[in-house]
């Protein structure tokens, strides 16, 4: 910021027609604005202006499964995605389908600005035909009428059985229509340090009570059982999902928000107890070098994470090769098999697309064709939502880093045990931000995770109301 300050200095020797007082104001302005611009440019968009159309939830959702016939002729489609290596997968399609050519635009991750760009381009009429949309954001897109109902497009409805149950349910966004084709999922399981557990005579926890007991034993050895991240609200959502919490109901005319649901409170109170007992590391952020260091040094013994997390540990904790294993998530009641889900995306057809049938055809191929799934798994690390995709050779063999364990068998089973009725809220980006804010405070000793849910409930309700959305009392 040297220039703006020094720039005006020649002004001091000049005596042009401008009166002195005014020049001072101008100089001051130049000084003030430049840093302000910088600060503004640095702050990432929070997505809080999403949903500004003010349409009531459920409104606009009543378009019947409209006829969806191919437009024919030579069609070119645009597809926005942030899966690494997607170009290579789409190149295969383009080679086989000269009449439906797809152009890939590689964008940053959705919440890093691409969703906002999609919403902007929907307003401006320059939106792509297809976009990568994560499950938790489908509802926001529906609210803005940003998605096309493709249930009438050839082949779409018949494909339902080919996809993991919960993923298809989410692609329907609580209605009879179909708004996207599931791409990948993140069924959750327990990554744990087999060697540490064995050395301390701890058996793999199958219930959350056993998990807490294991945490206490590990603490005596100076090891944290896991880290509780400030920013991964989506991870916590996955835990709530497993517990069977019903956070939202968007089926009626009004949105019902119940973040303080008894199941949700149970999860929050459980983790608060672990935090209070200093059984979990609260100073390590998800995906941070500090966390990776702790993994490498054996100071953190487990991570409850999604299928895609296997490469996160593999690539960032190389010193611990062969020492990790994967087991199903601990349960709230002994004997049950519920799993949560963290992450995953769909390939959605945006409402402005002029060729929904062709777009849907491509989306189906992309997420069903064995060759496409194999390549997307290899290049982009996608864990497919397609049931046949779960049988890919890469997903059925033992993984060296995990001592040869067939870790994906665990995730495949988890995938079938994910609650199909879990519903995301219409402004999930905001709700997750409210949760993260609360976590940060709770981890710093201000309030509890339970209070975080209370606060997020109030904040979500008022955010919905401010956007003109009917909220059930």
């Amino acid at each position: 910021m040297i220039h703006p300050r020094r720039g005006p200095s020649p002004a001091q020797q000049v005596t042009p027609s401008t009166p002195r007082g005014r020049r001072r104001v101008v100089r001051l302005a130049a000084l003030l604005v430049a840093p302000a611009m910088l600060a503004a440019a640095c702050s990432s968009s929070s997505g809080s202006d999403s949903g500004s159309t003010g349409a009531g939830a459920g409104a606009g959702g009543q378009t019947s499964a409209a006829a969806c016939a191919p437009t024919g002729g030579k069609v070119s489609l645009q597809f926005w995605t942030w899966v690494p290596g997607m170009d290579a997968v789409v190149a295969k399609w383009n080679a086989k389908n000269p009449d439906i050519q797809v152009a890939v635009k590689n964008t940053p991750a959705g919440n890093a600005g691409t969703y906002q760009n999609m919403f902007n381009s929907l307003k401006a009429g320059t939106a792509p035909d297809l976009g990568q949309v994560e499950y938790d954001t489908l509802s926001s897109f529906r609210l803005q009428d940003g998605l096309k109902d493709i249930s009438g497009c050839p082949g779409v409805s018949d494909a339902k059985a080919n996809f993991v149950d919960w993923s298809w349910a989410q692609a329907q966004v609580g209605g009879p229509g179909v708004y996207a084709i599931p791409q990948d999922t993140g069924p959750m399981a327990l990554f744990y340090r087999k060697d540490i557990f064995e050395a301390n005579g701890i058996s793999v926890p199958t219930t959350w009570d056993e998990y807490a007991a294991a945490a206490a034993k590990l603490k005596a050895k100076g090891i944290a059982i896991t880290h509780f991240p400030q920013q991964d609200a989506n991870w916590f959502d996955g835990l709530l999902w497993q517990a069977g919490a019903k956070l939202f109901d968007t089926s009626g005319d009004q949105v019902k928000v119940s973040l303080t649901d008894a199941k949700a409170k149970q999860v929050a109170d459980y983790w608060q107890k672990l935090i209070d007992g200093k059984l979990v590391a609260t100073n390590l952020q998800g995906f941070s070098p500090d966390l990776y260091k702790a993994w490498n040094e054996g100071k953190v013994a487990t991570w409850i994470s999604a299928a895609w997390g296997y490469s996160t540990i593999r690539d960032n904790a190389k010193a611990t090769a062969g020492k990790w294993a994967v087991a199903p998530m601990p349960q709230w009641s002994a004997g049950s098999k519920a799993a949560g889900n963290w992450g995953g995306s769909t390939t959605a057809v945006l409402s402005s697309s002029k060729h929904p049938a062709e777009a849907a055809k491509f989306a189906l191929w992309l997420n069903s064709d064995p060759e496409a799934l194999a390549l997307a798994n290899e290049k982009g690390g996608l864990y497919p939502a397609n049931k046949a995709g779960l049988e890919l050779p890469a997903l059925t063999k033992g993984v060296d880093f995990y001592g040869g364990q067939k870790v994906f068998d665990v995730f495949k089973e988890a995938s079938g045990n994910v609650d199909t009725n879990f519903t995301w809220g219409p402004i999930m980006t905001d709700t997750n931000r409210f949760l993260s804010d609360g976590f940060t405070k709770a981890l710093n000793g201000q309030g509890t995770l339970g209070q975080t849910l209370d606060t997020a409930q109030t904040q979500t309700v008022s955010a919905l109301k401010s956007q003109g959305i009917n909220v059930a009392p």
Partner: protein
Amino acid sequence: MSASTHTGSRPASTRGPREVSRLSVVIAMVFLVALAVYFLLPVYWLVVNATKTQSDLVTSNGFWFADWALWDNLKGLFTRDDGVFIRWVLNSVLYAGIGAAVGTLLAAMAGFALAKYRFRGREAIFSVILGGVLVPATALALPLFLLFAKASQTDTIWAVFLPSIVSPFGVYLSRIFAASAVPDEIIEAARIDGATERRIFFGIAARLMAPALVTIFLFQFIAIWNNFLLPRVMLNDAKLYPLTYGLFYWQTQISRDPQLQTLVIVGSLVSVVPLIVVFLSLQRFWQAGLAAGSVK
């Protein structure tokens, strides 16, 4: 005031170098060294960590070297996604280099005209341009996007290039500088000798204003080089990204591909190099610009 100070060897009227106490020199040095360390530490960290492998990155001391992997990292950087990083470098050079050059020319011409030509509405126009300084770029991004969308020019080079060549601050600076550095007498003499207005601007005024123009160029170059918001709103094609946004794009994919961490770091290091080159090569002119007029 006190007579004793005037009894020294020198008369008070001839100003010589003031004697500075040893203590204040030491204090100043310590302060400056502390500042230099503070500013250079992140750069040092960047240099050190750009030489590390992915696994050393998280396990070894961040402020000292581990196994030397800089060449591998650079190779990975320039070959990843079919060498898209080189595209980003070229894009940044295009947006920032040519954008700043054109922007400086426009600012110089506008500033000169506002300073030296008398016409109705001159002050009004100048005020409007100054108003532009006050409007933050953030506030303009979305309207610009909608504007470009109307012209079907979003996601093109022009969407980033055209807004970049406008610099209200540059116009302001040029006007102030032209008013002081270009004497009316020279212009009048040139006119009497039959020089065209174009010749007067390019042949005389622009040269006299050169130090200010270098400052404007540098300022504009850095502003465009670091501009993040505009590409973020306008572009969706990775081939058109400038360096800043390209590295950010990789950064957001780290959870899917942890190897990108090293590439983002080594890419950040490489992206600093052109800025340093521009700064060092133009520093001479720029310093001249700051001092110009101070001894008139």
